[in-house]
């Protein structure tokens, strides 16, 4: 087990920079998720930690060693790949024991380690099968087993669940979290799925275009996004953003209507902003909106409804922009019906219209 420290780590492909001097401190035993849209540099960062990509600048430290120039085999890490990368010509047993076999460990020790890993991941009845005879979920577990057999300092996961169907993905997510609780090893996990990130991570690292945009606990990035990108990337449905202007202590929306200024913000008069509100904080009146001190009220026609069982997602139009709102304890709503919505202003955000930066103090 070890901590992982990235200092000004850069990756260039020829003249093209893909990771720009990122800094990241991962504590011993922490579960960190790198998340971002495709092409944001998250996988490249992971592969630099693994030693599969050369580091163009900066240093990567695992434990007390700078590993920049160490080959993957000397870094004492394990990695689970998106396509599992199981050795197709070996049985599950051989796949699990491969790293120990390469390290020339005694056979008894290998057998014991393989049996242990198989037990943890319920792979014992499958030990003599070839990867080709396994289902997707089973292959996924073998890949994880292969990673835990060698008791590495750090586990690296590269989008391990994206090849599974939705149900299996949820199931494996729980298994990965349970595995982390059981073995307590540092985990660095890459995904483009923000739900995976929120559910798994101790801390989330949000990346975009080769930069780290925000680092924080799932709650922090959800409740206090540093900019409009994080606000819309984390959370489902994405946060509603409405263009507005600050005018005399209130917000003037595109159609000229105003809503009161949310508290705790630093703005100047005339500033162009985006008003951000999550669907959870904009609800039709009489449907379980928790009462808060700062409420605003708007009337909006409903254009589409999406019933989700315990709640219904309402699509409505506010000042020419489509917004999504939540209706708890739902009742049937007709398309075109005009409802009165309450907005919990203290949960709302303002972002600068040009820089996208959060204006919350």
């Amino acid at each position: 087990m070890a901590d992982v420290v990235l200092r000004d780590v850069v990756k260039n492909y020829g003249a093209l920079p893909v990771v720009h001097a990122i800094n990241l401190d991962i504590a011993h035993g922490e579960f960190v998720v790198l998340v971002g849209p495709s092409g944001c540099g998250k996988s490249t960062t992971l592969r630099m930690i693994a030693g599969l990509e050369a580091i163009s600048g900066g240093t990567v430290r695992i434990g007390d060693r700078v590993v920049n120039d160490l080959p993957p085999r000397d870094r004492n890490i394990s990695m689970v790949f998106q396509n599992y990368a199981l050795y197709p010509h070996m049985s599950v047993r051989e796949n699990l024991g491969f790293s120990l076999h390469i390290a020339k460990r005694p056979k008894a020790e290998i057998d014991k380690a393989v049996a242990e890993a198989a037990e943890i991941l319920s792979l014992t009845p499958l030990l003599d099968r070839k990867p080709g005879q396994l289902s997707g979920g089973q292959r996924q577990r073998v890949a994880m087993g292969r990673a835990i057999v060698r008791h590495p300092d750090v586990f690296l996961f590269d989008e391990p669940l994206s090849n599974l169907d939705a149900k299996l993905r949820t199931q494996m997510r729980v298994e990965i979290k349970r595995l982390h609780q059981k073995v307590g090893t540092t985990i660095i996990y890459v995904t483009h799925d923000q739900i995976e990130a929120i559910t798994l991570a101790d801390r989330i690292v949000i990346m975009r275009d080769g930069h780290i945009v925000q680092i924080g606990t799932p709650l922090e990035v959800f409740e206090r996004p540093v900019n409009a990108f994080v606000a819309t990337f984390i959370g489902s449905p994405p946060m509603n953003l409405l263009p507005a202007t600050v005018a005399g202590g209130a917000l003037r929306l595109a159609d000229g209507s105003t809503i009161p200024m949310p508290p705790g913000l630093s703005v100047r008069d005339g500033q162009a902003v985006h008003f951000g509100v999550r669907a959870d904080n904009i609800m039709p009146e009489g449907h379980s909106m928790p009462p808060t001190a700062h409420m605003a009220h708007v009337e909006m026609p409903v254009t589409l409804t999406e019933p989700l069982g315990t709640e219904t997602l309402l699509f409505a139009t506010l000042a020419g922009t489509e917004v999504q709102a939540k209706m708890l304890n739902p009742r049937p709503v007709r398309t075109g019906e005009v409802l009165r919505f309450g907005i919990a202003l203290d949960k709302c955000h303002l972002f600068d219209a040009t820089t996208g930066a959060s204006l919350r103090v």
Partner: protein
Amino acid sequence: MDQGQSHRIRRRLLALGHFIGLLLAMSLICLPGLWVVLNSFRPTVEIMAKPPVWIPSELNLDNYRAMFGGIGEGGVPVLTYFWNSLVISLTSTVIALLVGMAGGYAFARYRIPGKSAVFVGLMVTRAVPGVALSLPLFILYGRLGIIDTHFGMILVYVALNVPFTIWLIDGFFRQVPKELAEAAEIDGCTRWQAFWKVEFPVARAGIASAGIFAFLTSWNEYALASQLTRSLNSKTMPVGLMDFTSQFTLNWGGMCALAVLMIIPALVLTFLVQKHLIAGLTFGGVKG
């Protein structure tokens, strides 16, 4: 009920028709081979008979006996030819495979400037008919003094086979996900170990099929061998067949007997790796 039965009958008839059709096609393809085998066991009179004798009246090993017999009794140095063929084919196959693996792997895995141009260039060499090479090769070999040597023949066949093995093996390594080697490296392998312990075994079927193709090309090649070999030093079996021709006669029986001996190793080898061969061919088929 009735309908089900008629349906069943129709399906059986269709299967039977299918079978007969295949049998006819196969007999057409196999007939020349069968004729060679048959002729190797019967006297010249029967071989040359008009109209042809389909059902032999007598089968014997005379042709084989004569072939292995002394010089005066129509014997030819079969074992020497066989040995030459074996040495030349096997050596050239092994070399072509090693070069093919190195080249194919490099083409499949590494970014090299001008890669596709080099690749096309390699393939173009295959477009040149072998016979067109015989004269230039003959002059070149004459100057170098390597006419009628194993070395010379091996060189020719390696040159002939390498583009093909590279092309085929490149296709196979492309199908092996590169994450396999990466996983092996993380599991503690060096780059070299990752290749031999993971990538090579996974691509083995393809490499075996490339090997068979290379071996058969060398084993069966006649045109170049007939120019570049002279004596017992290096004459291969296909060239040895010409020993049965003389100015006025053609010993068909003897020729067929030698041909049978030639076919056997190729047949055995093909049977042994048949499964891989089919996998290899269809593999190459889906390669983009």
